[in-house]
């Protein structure tokens, strides 16, 4: 068919077909059509599993038996379950402390790496290592470091005569929380540091030079120039960092499985323990769904709290 013939055929076609044709040829219609694959992808691989998870949370499904709708029964039970609340407390504590430490140390590291250093690229590559090593591997290494009998830290300190008995890293609730947080911080710093370093390099050097000429101190330059210009990237980086930390699973599972006596159980690990080995899919799903409000709050905070300052858009504070 030649183009003329096609046009002729089109004009002969019934109105419904021409509507379709107009839809396809219109800018918006075509756009919608092009978005269909992506939408289908999202629907299949994001919306459906999420929706299924939420639905499971309202049922008493166990592994091996389809459940029935039981409304909020799972949530009512969790509301009354001290282990669940302990997990919520642990998760919030873990996320808060680890994120603050990761941000502080990561920013510090980024500032150092942004200075003129010998072997700069080498150091930048080294910094990424903890991030690159698979979590399970680094968690296993930490497992040995924190072992109640064979810890290298205890060994060295005992060799120096500073302590008499091995430190009970993962046995005491306080020490166990500190230990898992330290491991998480070690693993998370590179992501924060490298991302902030990228942000630092986008800050024009001329601003700093002008400030130096005006007699600004290094601290003033940091607080008045670097930090404000870095806020958007901080918002994004910390959002991701908080999300990763809040949903952490592997580290805890390898180090303690939530012990001692649930002192390091996070919502993610508790959800897994009850859903898969325990078979209570409905309850596990409810715990996972209970994480969503916290995650949404974290996202909203960093986007509206950190990024939407008026001065960032040229207005007054």
């Amino acid at each position: 068919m030649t183009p003329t013939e096609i046009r002729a055929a089109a004009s002969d076609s019934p109105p419904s077909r021409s509507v379709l044709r107009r839809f396809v040829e219109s800018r918006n219609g075509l756009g919608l059509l092009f978005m269909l694959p992506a939408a289908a992808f999202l629907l299949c691989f994001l919306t459906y599993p999420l929706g299924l998870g939420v639905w499971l949370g309202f049922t008493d499904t166990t592994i091996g038996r389809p459940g029935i709708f039981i409304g909020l029964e799972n949530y009512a039970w969790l509301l009354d379950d001290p282990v669940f609340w302990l997990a919520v407390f642990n998760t919030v504590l873990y996320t808060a402390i680890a994120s603050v430490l990761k941000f502080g140390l990561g920013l510090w590291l980024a500032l150092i790496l942004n200075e003129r250093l010998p072997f700069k690229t080498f150091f930048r590559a080294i910094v990424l290592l903890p991030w690159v090593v698979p979590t399970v591997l680094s968690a296993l290494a930490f497992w040995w470091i924190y072992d109640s009998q064979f810890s290298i830290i205890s060994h060295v300190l005992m060799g120096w005569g500073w302590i008499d008995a091995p430190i009970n890293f993962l046995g005491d609730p306080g020490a166990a929380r500190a230990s898992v947080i330290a491991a998480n911080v070690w693993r998370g710093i590179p992501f924060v540091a490298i991302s902030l370093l990228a942000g630092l390099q986008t800050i024009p050097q001329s601003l700093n030079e002008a400030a130096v000429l005006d007699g600004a101190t290094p601290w003033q330059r940091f607080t008045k120039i670097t930090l404000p210009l870095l806020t958007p990237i901080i918002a994004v980086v910390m959002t991701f960092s908080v999300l990763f930390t809040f949903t952490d699973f592997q580290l805890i599972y390898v180090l303690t499985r939530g012990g001692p006596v649930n002192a390091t159980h996070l919502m993610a690990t508790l959800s897994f323990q009850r859903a898969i080995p325990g078979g209570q899919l409905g309850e596990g799903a409810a715990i996972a769904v209970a994480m969503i409000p916290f995650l949404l709050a974290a996202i909203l905070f960093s986007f509206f709290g950190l990024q939407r300052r008026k001065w960032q858009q040229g207005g007054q504070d």
Partner: protein
Amino acid sequence: MRRRDLLKSSAGLAALAGLGGLGGRAFAQEMPTFTPEEGASLRLLRWVPFVAGEEEAWNANTQAFTEATGIQVQIDQESWEDVRPKAAVAANVGSGPDMVMSWFDDPFQYPDKLVDVTDLCTALGERDGGWYDGLRAYATQGDRFIAVPLCAIGNAICYRDSHMQAAGFTEFPSDTAGFLELCKAMQANGTPAGFPHGKAVGDGNNYAHWLLWSHGGMTVDENGQVVIDSPETRAAIEYAKQLYATFIPGTESWLDINNNRAFLAGEISLTANGVSLYYAAKNDPAMAEIAEDIRTTNLPIGPVGESVELHQTSTINIFQHTPYPNAAKAYVAWMFQPDNFNRWLEGASAYCCQPLRAYESNPVWSSNPIHVPYSKASASLRTNGYAGPLGPASAGAMADYVLVDMFAEAVTGQRTTDDAIANAVRRLERYYRS
């Protein structure tokens, strides 16, 4: 003599013993014959073997089955914690493996999806001296066998003989009171004991269940009513507190591997474990001294007056969705032929304990005194969630560490005894809600 040599030479003995002792009886009893369906082939899902010899023997028996019948058997392995969800999905979707070698109460998660194997199991029981009560309970619903009991993975105390003697004991105490004295004396000597109070799936649950049961406590009664709030449970917790005070510090963080590590490094001198601990020492020339010094014995008897333990247990379940149920039964019957089953028990070198009493005479149990306590696993075994029914509730309560947590909360002082029990009651009532 290396372990492998020992196994080889004793395997010959086993074959002879199997033929002479059990073979004779086999002819006396009528076994039903299962004629495999035309063109049958089978798939078995099993846990990843812990002992290489066990896998070799199982596969060799399977190979012989294929040669004798022409039925191909494909064996898939999953790590032992992944078998449960995989099998449950297969049961519900109605496709996948034809048989599964599963753990604990798995048959009761999907009893309606399993082939009735009463004919096979009754005949096996009559031929081979009868099933042990505990293992039979893991496979029967009413009078019906819904699964074939395969084995118990024995748990026993492993200790250093020289350290026990140095603590002033010539014989290992057989009751809980004497055991506490031993642990106290060993701690005073700087060679303490250690049992996991952490989330150790196997060892932690074994220890917690022994504590409760040896003192006469139980989680639920026959009807699934929660009865853990009892004087017996209180006595068990008080006893656990006293024992915990004698342990090496840090046991509340222990996972399954920690007690092995600490024992092999000489940090603790007494713990409970599978026979694998002994073989880890024996197979390492650097640990010859420890291997020589290791002795094993059963966990002491408490006020309840008999030896009661959890142990890990395994059954073979045949799914109803298999197009070849007779071939599957023929396969299981083949594996349970005395020669084959003896070879398999030999290969497992005391890791697996027989489900049928006739195999008590398997030479693996007399070949090494270390093995002896493990031969009693099937006899001392109690079902999970005793005395309640098996099913999703008992399985969930164990997987959620209800008992492990109760003891850990109390011994570490995180909760009082009463609060720890009250918390266990809440959690158990949730699992056992109708």
